[in-house]
């Protein structure tokens, strides 16, 4: 039995909805295309489709829950839109590695940023998401510094969201956030500065 080939196909069936649908339509054909022997293909053709779908759904839910935990203010700001937007993003990436959940959250925020106008996501929500993604990026001790500009006062919005208060559409006020780690082992320093509005000369 080619266990390596079987596991490779299983891993794709659990994470790729399109392949899963194709497989359960023509399991022997798909298994053969994935390099399985005829015997191994026959084995996997007996996989109960409802069980595979149920497991795949649980993997997706787990992935969604992990990202929600990592960007809680973005979750609060998007509300019911978070889950459908994540569902649109999820097929674009299968997170890998020991930092897969933070990397997944950062990639989701990047997706929100790219598709903000198409998905009609308010710019202040994008700023909230970018701010949380920046924290996740800087949690990696090999990252030493980061400066991010925001169009909205993230220093005020984040504490409100953290206390479960969704701000009404905030007024624009440029802000700058700095993250700094002097050495890989030192504490992460952070400051948010709101910038005054520029005044036109009289």
């Amino acid at each position, binding site marked *: 039995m080619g266990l390596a080939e079987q596991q490779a196909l*299983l891993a794709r069936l659990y994470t790729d909805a399109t392949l899963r649908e194709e497989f359960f339509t023509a399991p022997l054909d798909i298994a053969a295309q994935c390099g399985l022997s005829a015997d191994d293909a026959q084995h996997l053709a007996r996989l109960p489709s409802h069980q595979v779908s149920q497991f795949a759904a649980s*993997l997706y839910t787990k992935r969604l829950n992990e990202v929600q935990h990592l960007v809680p203010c973005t979750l609060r700001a998007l509300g019911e839109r978070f889950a459908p937007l994540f569902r649109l993003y999820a097929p674009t990436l299968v997170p890998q590695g020991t930092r*897969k959940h933070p990397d997944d959250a950062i990639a989701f925020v990047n997706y929100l940023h790219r598709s903000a106008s198409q998905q009609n996501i308010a710019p202040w929500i994008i700023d909230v998401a970018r701010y949380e993604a920046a924290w996740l990026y800087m949690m990696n001790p090999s990252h030493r510094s980061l400066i991010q500009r925001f169009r909205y006062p993230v220093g005020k919005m984040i504490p409100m969201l953290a206390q479960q208060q969704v701000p009404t559409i905030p007024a624009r006020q440029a802000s700058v956030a700095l993250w700094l780690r002097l050495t890989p082992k030192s504490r992460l320093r952070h400051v948010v500065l709101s910038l005054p509005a520029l005044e036109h000369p009289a």
Partner: protein
Amino acid sequence: MALSELPALGTGLGFREPFRSDLFLQRDEVDFLEITADHYFDASPDKQRELELLRAHFTLIPHGLSLSLGSAEGLDAGYLKQFAALVESLDPPYWSEHLAFTRAGGVEVGHLCSLPWTPEAIDVVCRNIKTVRQRISTPLILENITYTVGMPGAQMTEGQFLTEVLERSDCGLLLDVTNLYTNAVNHGYDASSWLDEAPLERVVQLHFAGGEWNHGTLIDSHAAPTSLEVWQLLDEVVARAPVKGIILERDENLPPFAELLQEVQRARAIGRRHRRWA
């Protein structure tokens, strides 16, 4: 070291950051902790300091999620290196992982996937454990997982599969009582009969937690109080197996810390009643 020589640790918790403060205020109520090893790989300085603080006050058992001991393509060398460094730094009496695979063909599935109960799968696991032992000599115990997908092509029972893996690799068993109960309910078999076939003499530690029903399927969510059925099964296991430690794995929907301690204390009382510890 023979499994029988491992120290009796008592009862404890899987460490979760939200209850860190409560844990230190009531640390005398918890005998030992299990930590999720992956949370301390590439860790921030704050997480490193947290680990040092935990280590200063508790025996810590590192529990891995992604070593993928069942992967036929072999182990991830980088992950193994990080795990070995963690085990060396903690110097635990034993460490644990799962009898499962989590990655294959360049894809990380993101969760524990079941293995077929076949001689080939046994060979794969034992080969991977041999590789592990070149880096980590501390005793290893392996956990039984829940499985949604019943792998076709089984050539033996799960009990036979477990027995052969553990005997050939000389590993202990981390018997997750909740996982056993969950599988028994979902796949229609008797948990006590499963225990009859399991290598109970190799049990070192237990896991237990509460689960939830979802559309007719029992889920090991670790998000609810432990059910009466799991308590009864845990009592049966402690009576029959030379348990050294029991860990409550509550991950989600955390109640007040006092409620977690009640479950820890109840498990401790079960261990005392069956003379597993004083």
